């Protein structure tokens, strides 16, 4: 009897250990499992529905969906301003500001909390949350998550000199539209980009597309063009991918025309100057009108009225002196490295000041 009890105890202990090791998979939304996702880098962040945060991991060549459980709706966002946010983040991570890089920022549209991705000198990624001016760490262990590997479109026919499959592109931006995660990637080798559309919840079969996107400058020269940042928006009742390129043209693609493997030509509606790389793009409301807002590396935030984009029905076909196409204005915010919309009328951004401070600040239409 004692022997039986002993073996039963051993069996129970073994089962308990197995249960402790395996992630709990039952009844979690979106096909998620509880566990600790392997995240090698955080290149891009975007929110889906219900507080689901998508993390673009360039080094891991994957997208990870995390259930933040941050779903308490906040109808009135509070303006958040933190002077020296780089110093404050660095101190919280036990280092100095020159040893960290803020890699992306996204606002949870439900709670209006600000999620900031940071990496240390050695590349270790960390996810932080700013809520009411307080910075806390968001633990990426023991969370409900699912992930999908970004298959390299060239891997089947190309390997490098050491026989390894080519790595996936660097993730340059992500968005969520109509139940799909949109991921733009830049290659570190050839001059090209991919735009993948991945249904969520992630499936067993990866339904992704790789689009070769072209634009024509003034109707004469045509080039493939790597997308740097994008958003989605409605123009004349139709949904568009609004993309900005590494060479700054603003180009529209009807979302219903983006199909896997397609060679798609976009409609260039604006050229936004030189020596500049677009960083982030979003849509806000101001005085009852809708505006596309774009942050840039080398100039102030640009603002384009959707009404003007809709009115510019052609493509840039003639040489125009200066900046060409749909008119835009520059908002009084330069040296912005990260930007998202806090709510429909407020922008939140990380901006380097003339005195060297790097601040998190909120702007609304009364500021400009």
């Amino acid at each position, binding site marked *: 009897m004692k022997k039986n009890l002993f073996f039963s105890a051993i069996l129970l202990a073994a089962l308990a250990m197995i249960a402790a090791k395996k992630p709990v998979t039952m009844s979690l939304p979106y096909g998620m499992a509880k566990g600790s996702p392997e995240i090698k880098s955080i290149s891009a962040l975007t929110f889906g529905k219900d507080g689901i945060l998508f993390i673009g991991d360039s080094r891991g060549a994957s997208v990870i969906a995390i259930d933040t459980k941050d779903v308490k709706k906040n109808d009135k966002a509070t303006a958040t301003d933190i002077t020296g946010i780089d110093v404050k983040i660095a101190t919280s991570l*036990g280092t100095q500001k020159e040893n960290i890089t803020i890699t992306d920022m996204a606002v949870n549209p439900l709670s209006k909390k600000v999620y900031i991705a940071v990496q240390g000198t050695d590349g270790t990624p960390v996810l932080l949350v700013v809520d009411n001016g307080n910075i806390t760490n968001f633990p990426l262990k023991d969370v409900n998550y699912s992930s999908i590997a970004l298959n390299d479109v060239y891997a089947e026919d190309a390997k490098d000199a050491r026989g390894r499959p080519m*790595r996936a592109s660097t993730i340059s931006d992500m968005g969520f539209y109509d139940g799909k995660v949109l991921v733009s990637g830049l290659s570190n080798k050839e*001059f090209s980009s991919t735009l993948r559309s991945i249904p969520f919840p992630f499936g067993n079969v990866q339904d992704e597309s790789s689009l070769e996107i072209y634009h024509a*400058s003034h109707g*004469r020269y045509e080039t493939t063009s790597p997308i740097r940042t994008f958003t989605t928006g409605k123009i004349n009742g139709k949904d568009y991918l609004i993309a900005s390129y590494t060479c700054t043209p603003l180009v529209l693609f009807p979302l219903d025309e983006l199909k896997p493997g397609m*060679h798609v030509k976009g409609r260039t509606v604006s050229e936004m100057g030189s020596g*500049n790389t677009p960083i982030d793009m979003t849509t806000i409301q101001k005085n009852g009108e809708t505006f596309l807002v774009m942050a840039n590396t080398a100039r102030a935030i640009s603002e384009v009225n959707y009404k003007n984009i809709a009115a510019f029905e052609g493509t840039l076909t003639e040489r125009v002196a200066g900046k060409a196409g749909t008119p835009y204005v520059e908002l009084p915010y330069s040296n912005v490295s990260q930007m998202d919309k806090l709510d429909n009328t407020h922008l939140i951004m990380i901006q380097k000041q003339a005195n060297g401070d790097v601040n998190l600040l909120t702007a609304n239409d009364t500021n400009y």
Partner: protein
Amino acid sequence: MTRIINTNTVTIKNIRLRAVRNLIFFLIPVLFSCNSRETGIHIIKDGQRAKAVSIPRNLAADIADDSIGTVVQVKLKSGHPSVAIFGKYIHNNDSIVFEPYIPFTPGLEYEVFVGNKQAGSFKIPAGNIADAPTVLAVYPSPDTLPENLLKVYIRFSQPMQEARSAQHIVLIKNNKDTLTNVFLDLQPELWNDTRTVLTVWLDPGRIKRDLQPNLRLGNPLQEKNKYTLLVTNGWKGANGISLQKDFTKQFVASKRDSLSPVPHNWDLEIPKTNTKDEFKIDLKEPLDHFLLEESLQVVTDKNIPVKGKWVIDKDDRHCAFIPTETWSAGNYILVIASRLEDLAGNNLNRPFDRDITKTKTPPVTATYRRNFVIGD
């Protein structure tokens, strides 16, 4: 019992197998001296990284296990006194190990607090200059490059800190003018997976004909001018130690290259049967160093890959395939991926920019093929 506490959540979790795995470094820590020999605080290293700190449990003897994450705090000595470092506490009867979410920084000093009282301090030794990164090479290698050069690769001896290229890469014209708005300030930067090779693009808006930046400013490079690419010292490696010396590469700009490479024009040097002779190719122009490594393949006429390795010459204009086995007589095919580019971004399918008023849409194929025969 060993317990794990996250400082941000302050929830206690029972030990699990994964935690045991994490604790392996407890058993084989690399302990080395710190300035708190009397307190028994030790730094735990993982390779070159100061991954965690071990604090004797008796320094917090009066603190209940459940309260360790809130009462015991590690702070940056030069930081704000109210800010505790985010991280994870693991403790047993003898010690408390604090693992920050990013490793401790070489050269910085930290304090351990139990409540409001400083219980000890420790300093992470500054890195050894012998471990400093260096620039191994810049590609393209040739000293004459087309004025519409599209990209430059910089290969480092070890992984580097990201998002610093704009401060450390400079282009100087004719030994006197430091050029601005030449490189694309791309965030995120384009690194390889080990963060040892960085791709830097010259501003494509200035290279693409007819775009406003091109019309207003012209190419970043101009034919017949001399340029110096400078990678400045001070750029930190992932180990926290900075590049000690500047690196320079000098070159002259030649005329614009607006044509796609044509594999049909390449000279092939066919090896002899029953030898391991190299299969050599003269590409007739320098091509992209890293794409070359990935774009070429030799297969038999049955489409079976021939085992071997590719070697790219320093001039990026010649390359050779060295077979693992001796060549057998037969028909072979050199398969070339169409995305192979020259130095101006012209690939095998299409030039970098195409005048659509003068040329037809080129065919798009995944590969190009050159047949060759190895005879008896």
